[in-house]
């Protein structure tokens, strides 16, 4: 069979159309999910929603203040744990590129990225919840901090690797000690990239549910004690979404809306930061 040029060109065009078509289809879920969440979510939101506790079935005017406070607290504590550890590890990886330890650390980071969040939940349950004798906010924060680590480490390492070596040498040649050089010259030069990584990792764990199921657990009341169980946005969405009550679904839509807005907001911030506040060398 002879394939004419026309036939080849037809196939070529057809393929391009298929690619464009399938790509467009891929964007549909995002639009559909956002549409549904916005439509259902906005109607669920009012002042009470942000200041009230969830009400029992049948009573209107319930809110999610406990989950909001819980999520903020969980993420704050998780950040306090993971940011220093992640940034220091990232510095190590960019400073000592060819050591055995950096090889194994990078490998561990890659593996850690892929560990299912539910498995991290199990481990933190065994380590913290079992030891402390009960669910607690701190155990939830530890689980989230483990999930934040890989992206903080990676973004720190990759950002610092791109910083010209002469900057470090310039500082050292002024008689500045190594640790001050890293902390005061190298880190500030890479701050945008590192912060983006941190914010993205926060955006990711803000919606993490699985590792919280058996660590932070949940709490129908406002709690600020990190040794006690605590509620969170994703947990409240999960629990209310699978409940059979209309009122609770409404709360879940509202909570989803708030969570989506937070996640989108954090993602957009990093986009802008990466473009606007990029350090010029």
């Amino acid at each position, binding site marked *: 069979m002879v394939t004419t040029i026309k036939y*080849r060109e037809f*196939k*070529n065009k057809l*393929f*391009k159309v298929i*690619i*464009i078509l*399938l*790509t467009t289809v*891929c964007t549909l879920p*995002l639009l*559909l*999910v956002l549409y*549904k*969440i916005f439509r259902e979510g906005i109607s669920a939101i009012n002042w009470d929603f942000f200041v009230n506790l969830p009400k029992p079935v049948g009573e209107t005017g319930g809110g999610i203040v406990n989950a909001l406070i819980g999520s903020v607290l969980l993420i704050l504590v998780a950040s306090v744990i993971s940011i*220093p*550890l992640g940034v*220091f*590890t990232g*510095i190590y*990886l960019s400073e*000592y590129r060819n050591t055995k*330890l*950096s090889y194994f*650390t990078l490998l*561990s980071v890659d*593996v*850690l990225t*892929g*560990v*299912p*969040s*539910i498995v*991290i939940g*199990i*481990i933190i349950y*065994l380590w913290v919840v079992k030891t402390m004798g009960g669910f607690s906010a701190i155990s939830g924060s530890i689980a989230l901090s483990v999930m934040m*680590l890989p992206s903080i480490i990676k973004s720190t390492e990759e950002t610092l690797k791109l910083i010209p070596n002469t900057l470090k040498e310039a500082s050292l040649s002024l008689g500045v*000690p*190594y*640790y001050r050089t890293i902390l005061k010259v190298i880190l500030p030069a890479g701050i945008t990239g590192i912060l983006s990584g941190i914010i993205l990792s926060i*955006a*990711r764990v803000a*919606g*993490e*549910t*699985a590792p919280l*199921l*058996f660590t932070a657990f949940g709490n129908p009341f406002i709690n600020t004690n990190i040794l006690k169980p605590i509620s969170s946005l*994703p947990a409240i*969405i*999960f629990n209310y*979404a*699978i409940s059979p009550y209309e009122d609770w679904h409404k709360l*879940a839509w509202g909570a*989803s809306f708030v*969570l989506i807005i937070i*996640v989108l907001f954090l*993602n957009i911030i990093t*986009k802008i930061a990466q473009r606007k506040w990029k350090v010029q060398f």
Partner: protein
Amino acid sequence: MPITTDQQIKGINFSEFAFRKILFISAISIVILLFCFFLTLVASSLPSINTIGIKFIYGVTWDPVSDKFGGFPFLAGTLFTSLLALIIAIPFSLSVALFLGEYFRTGLISAIFKNIVELLAAIPSVIYGFWGLFVLVPLIRSLETKIGVAPYGVGILTSSIILSIMIVPYAVSLTVQVITLVPADLKEAAYSLGATRLEVIRNIILPYTRSGIFAGILLALGRALGETMAVTMLIGNSHIVPVSIFSPGNTMASVIANEFTEATGKIYLSALIEMGLFLFLVTTIINIIGRSVIKRFSIS
């Protein structure tokens, strides 16, 4: 020259030493952390491994009340949903990857679609599950009524569709990375021989990136295997071996999510942890293989 006293120098030397130690300890703690994960999972799985043994893999009855812990339904459910999700996701991922890595590499259209894919990845699992429960499940249910199977709505197919939406962005980001690495002169050589774009894609790009694309799909599979929340909400939580794409079922991750906090017996808890160990090992192996293929690809 600013005077530096011995005292100051001693202080600096100490800080220098401490700083390097902190870096070292941070890096090594990540390795230790992962190693301890493994040890903890193994140690806590031992009671189950010892009592249930190999039956854990092929046993089809999961009945904690009568101490029967056959994990086969969940193994089957996990593989079934993940592979189905992969089959759905592959054509879409490849299309988007070619779209972003070949057809529209720069410009506004590319930027828009890149951002959409990134946002797709940013939506939390629990929200996909919630959305699936209220939008996808009714759709599937009416489809099931139409073709005359039991209209559960929830089940393997529903979970797989949501899973595929969740893994597409992940597979795309890895695949675009390798497609953009195809040397321009290779492509230009083919174009100069009169090849069409499709022929270049088929004969140059795809063969060149085969191992990279494989790694991308493998890593996407790893993600699908461990995905928990959305699947837990959509799979139907039934402890039977799924026989069709419309059957409800259960995956390992969702069994853990559902039963972990209420697992009372020692063996019961240990059996759930053993499933966690299995997920840990499988995703670890997948990640090590996948990443090393991609790394080798980017270097060469």
